[in-house]
């Protein structure tokens, strides 16, 4: 493994964490959005709020991590993506601002109407933001970002595969979130909410699974390079993801709650790394290879050091935050 490949692996690790934890936070917003009117939606929304409040900002930092590693270790790739896909990226940025502000404001703002508006802003942007992020990823996978950048601002992502990927991102976040919330509801001793999120986890898993299957068909049509490698080198990971997904369905139906989170996470992690394997050795298939885009060695070494420090300091700290949060030592609303 070359230094450049190792830096790409670090990028993928960041993407994995962001998909798992940031994705679940977006999913929380999705369930908030569809929780119904004030009366019916009150308790699920309260649970979502308690689960998200202490952790969403820390989870959001993985996005910063991804951006920083991308522009430092692979500057031409960052520049090419940004100068081509600026429309969905700018929309995702607006979504990030609205979502964070909506979430922060709705806790402290007074008046039902104002809180509703802030809450709706949070919930709606929690759906739009991952959609546009997925569209960006789908456009990259489709090979629509030229290595020199400045690709077409609209046709690069207004295609079936990018849009389908956007939908898949939303569905996957909803699915992860519902599974996480099953556990939170159980811990809170709210059996009806537990059943509520089991039903939703099943529905979201089905939608995510269908989107993934459609995605494979579209990959075949629009991103042949990735498709061919996904069903070849990437096949074990695709199968693993499918097995985890299937196992999750069984676990949900049979009430094997302890297995839910590992299986849900496993399905997502396997597909992210399957995609990584399928895209290798390209950052932008098939115009820019990892080694072509890589920064000089000393810069890559800095990224390795940063990653090592993150592994030693940040991961245990995150673990502490999650442990305190899961033991209800942090108040979800203040």
């Amino acid at each position: 493994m070359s230094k450049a490949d190792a830096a790409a692996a670090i990028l993928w690790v960041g993407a994995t964490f962001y998909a798992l934890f940031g994705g679940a936070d977006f999913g929380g917003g999705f369930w908030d959005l569809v929780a119904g009117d004030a009366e019916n939606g009150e308790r699920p929304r309260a649970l979502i709020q308690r689960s998200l409040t202490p952790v969403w900002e820390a989870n959001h930092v993985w996005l910063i991590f991804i951006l920083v590693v991308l522009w430092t270790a692979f500057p031409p790739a960052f520049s090419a993506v940004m100068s081509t896909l600026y429309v969905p990226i700018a929309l995702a940025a607006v979504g990030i601002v609205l979502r964070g502000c909506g979430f922060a404001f709705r806790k402290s703002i007074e008046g039902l109407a104002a809180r509703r508006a802030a809450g709706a802003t949070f919930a709606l942007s929690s759906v739009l933001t991952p959609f546009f992020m997925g569209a960006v990823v789908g456009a990259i996978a489709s090979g629509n970002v030229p290595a020199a950048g400045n690709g077409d601002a609209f046709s690069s992502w207004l295609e079936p595969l990018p849009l389908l990927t956007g939908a898949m991102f939303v569905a996957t976040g909803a699915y992860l979130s519902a599974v996480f919330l099953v556990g939170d509801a159980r811990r809170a001793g709210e059996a009806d909410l537990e059943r509520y999120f089991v039903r939703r986890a099943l529905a979201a898993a089905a939608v995510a699974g269908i989107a993934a299957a459609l995605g494979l068909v579209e990959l075949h049509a629009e991103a042949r390079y990735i498709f061919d490698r996904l069903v070849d080198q990437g096949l074990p990971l695709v199968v693993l993801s499918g097995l985890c997904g299937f196992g999750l369905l069984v676990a949900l139906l049979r009430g094997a709650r302890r297995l839910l989170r590992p299986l849900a996470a496993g399905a997502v992690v396997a597909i992210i790394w399957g995609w990584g394997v399928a895209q290798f050795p390209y950052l932008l298939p098939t115009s820019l290879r990892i080694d072509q885009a890589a920064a000089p060695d000393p810069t890559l070494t800095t990224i390795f050091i940063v990653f090592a420090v993150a592994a030693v300091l940040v991961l245990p700290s995150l673990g502490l935050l999650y442990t305190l949060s899961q033991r209800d030592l942090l108040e979800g609303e203040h």
Partner: protein
Amino acid sequence: MLSLDALPLAASASNLLAAREQMAFTLGFHIVLSCLGVALPATIMVANYIGLKRGDKDAMELARRWSKAMAVTFAVGAVTGTVLSFEFGLLWPNFMDRFGAAFGIAFGIEGIFFFLEAIFLAIYIYGWKRLGGWAHFWAGVPMVVTGIGGAFSVVAANSWMNQPQGFTLNAAGKVVDTDPLKVLFNPATGYEAPHMILAAYMVVGFLVASIYAVGMLKGRRDRLHRLGLLIPLTIGCILTPVQLFVGDTAAREVADHQPAKFAGMECIQKTGGHQTEYVGGICTSDGVKAAIPIPDLDSFLVGFSADTKVIGLDDIPVDERPPANTLLHLSFDAMVGIGTALLGLAAWLGFFWWRKRDIPQTPWFLRAVVVSGAGAILALWCGWIVTEVGRQPWIVQGYMRTSEAVTEADGIWFSFAAVLVLYIAIGTIAIKVLRRMSRRWREGGAEPEGTPYAPPTTSGEAGR
């Protein structure tokens, strides 16, 4: 052919202005919030420490309230900071393409600090009820360290743009080798980073104090208000003389290493000794109009002698001179002027405290504290105008022009307009939310609980 060539050029000139305006506006907005992220933790920890050590209920209450306010400002700061990360690529893709390998190094380190700050901030803010006591206090201490570390890293990246080093370019202008330590510890980091970290502490100190001064002027003279004014004001006042020393050193370094910026901000037209220091005024090519001239002082400030030679704009090629000379000059003067006024305020408090062990009781003192908060923010903005506008036309001093860095994408004016509307809205709501929080605390009312759009009658139920 000519018209075809001219067209994209005109488009990119317009893009350059729009991109610069958007960057300046979003950065100016974010930097106030980032000051709160850098320095509010320390202010809170001081109150928390006093509260625990002396069993002071008022100090504990202040720490609790400030941390609740920080939950709001940190959230807005985190997302507006993310926007800046996107903007590096959306507005300046050619800069990132060519220099990301060097410029990005400091941000990698900043990422670690920001991560840790977000984690411990969450533990601290949401751990009030169930962590309690010294364990809770120690969970907050990492915020202070990571806030300072993060500020250092971000400013190191900016310093590198001012005094770039630690990289090798090939014939095509691509970075082919880097020396990360040289990038990080470029000469400008030495004065820019402490200058900015002190500025963050001053902004927070004077801003928080000014809020309590408003309350005291309205007759709320209880102990909580006095302590709420005294703790942050003391921090701001102690650091002000240090800041003036650091700023003075920084100006001399700028004169030595970024002569074009210095000539612009001091309106120096001709190279030579015995330079006049102009206070205020309008810069024109034939001298400064409507200013207060102090003969020889500029030379003296740069080299401690009236004979010190200072480089003027006449030695800078026309196409490398900073634009908006008057803006630069007035910004610099405003920053120095406000800093000096804050030193006066610090002396007032210090003298009175030394004699009477109390805050000066005259309304004029409280009025001065009220103004100091806005003044500190204004000085912060002026400082950044000097740093950034003063470096123009360069984005990387001497290596890349801002006009070469800008995106070719369409619609930058549109995105600037959208950002303007969005940020004004969230800024207004954020201030409104903070004011409501403060009124709620004052009236002793319960904080709204439960989910945001639950019916008011049952919201208490869900709040547990």
